[in-house]
């Protein structure tokens, strides 16, 4: 059981950040679905609920998703369903159930860089930047590599475009964690292929994507891209699936995603 010594509703993001730095055991509260599973002894629990971070805003060239936005809000938001073939709503739609998704938050999910994350895989094929209070705005792939220790994720900023995208995943049963997840996109800058839950965190298959960039891919190009993706990314085993199994289904899911976007 995790414990909370002090609970503070932050009045400003500056206050929240200052409190976070005051003690190693202090922590930001997201939706608490993951925190409650652990045994963390939190000194000061910092609540961001009053900071207006639960909004999804469409600007002229971006869509911004606040850190305290729930996955259910992502799933039902009009703009997010309109752009990128609804790849973000589709990515979160299989995570447990609607009442779970009403509780969990975007900020915690991205900040924690979970290997199994459905949402991160989909974000990775869009032009996504992560805004952190201290570290500022950084591209998502850089954040996934480097992290940002003891910072606060405030929002995601996604560039609007006519990117076409697809989301594919496989689970042993509905509402379980994914065995593997894949997102594919095609925009003015070319193709992107992201594979997550390998079980390591999502990464882009850059060489494979390049193979698709010269004109309309034919069956042979798709096959080459799929094989290259499986070679350039590392796959591993855990209780949900072996490395060999993951490599096999990766091929199917990537090919399916590419065909959907074509």
């Amino acid at each position, binding site marked *: 059981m995790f414990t909370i010594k002090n*609970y503070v509703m932050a009045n400003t993001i500056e206050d929240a950040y200052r409190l976070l730095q005051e003690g190693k055991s202090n922590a930001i509260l997201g939706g608490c679905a993951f925190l*409650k599973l652990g045994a963390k002894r939190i000194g000061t629990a910092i609540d961001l609920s009053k900071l207006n971070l639960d909004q999804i805003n469409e600007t002229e060239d971006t869509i911004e998703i606040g850190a305290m936005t729930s996955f259910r809000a992502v799933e039902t938001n009009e703009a997010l369903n309109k752009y990128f073939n609804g790849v973000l709503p589709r990515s979160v739609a299989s995570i*447990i*159930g609607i009442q*779970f998704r009403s509780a969990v938050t975007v900020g915690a999910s991205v900040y924690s860089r979970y290997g199994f994350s459905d949402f991160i895989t989909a974000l990775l094929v869009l032009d996504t930047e992560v805004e952190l209070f201290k570290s500022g705005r950084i591209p998502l792939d850089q954040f996934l590599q480097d992290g940002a220790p003891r910072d606060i994720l405030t929002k995601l900023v996604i560039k609007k475009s006519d990117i076409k995208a697809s989301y594919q995943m496989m689970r042993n049963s509905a509402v379980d964690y994914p065995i593997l997840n894949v997102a594919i996109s095609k925009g003015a800058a070319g193709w992107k292929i992201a594979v997550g839950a390998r079980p390591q965190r999502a990464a882009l298959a850059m060489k494979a994507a390049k193979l698709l960039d010269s004109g309309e891919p034919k069956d042979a190009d798709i096959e080459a891209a799929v094989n290259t993706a499986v070679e350039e990314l590392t796959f591993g085993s855990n209780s949900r699936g072996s490395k060999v199994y993951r490599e096999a289904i990766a091929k199917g899911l990537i090919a399916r995603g590419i065909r959907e976007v074509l």
Partner: protein
Amino acid sequence: MRIEVIVNNRKIEMDVENNEFLVDTLRRYGFNSVKRGCDTGNCGLCTVWVDEKPTLSCATLAVRAAGRHITTIEALQTEAKEVAEFLVAEGADQCGFCSPGFLMTVLAMKKELQNPTDEEIKHYLAGNLCRCTGYVGQLRAIKKYLGVA
């Protein structure tokens, strides 16, 4: 910490621990329909409405319920009975342990979705597990209840 919560349209003052979850608080204050069926956030039994939205009370810190409207099945007896009759008619309830959370989700779905398809119904109800009945009978019953059978 002392908080004021509106439960089933009645203002209640509650004393809560910092790390207490709403499911436990509601039970302490006599809302015994709200139950915990798992430790992980998977089963949906603890579903209540927070400001009308179905939410897991086992993952909602009680302090965060301050000033919110919480609805439990105690306040929806007539509606619950109506759904229950459809479930019984289809042989889709057995021990009934999963019912409080399930009914809260079904009633929310009725408000949120118009003429849902089978897929939309299953998607909405995926987070409510039932160990006894299987889901085919439930789906038949819910479709009849919603008038989309």
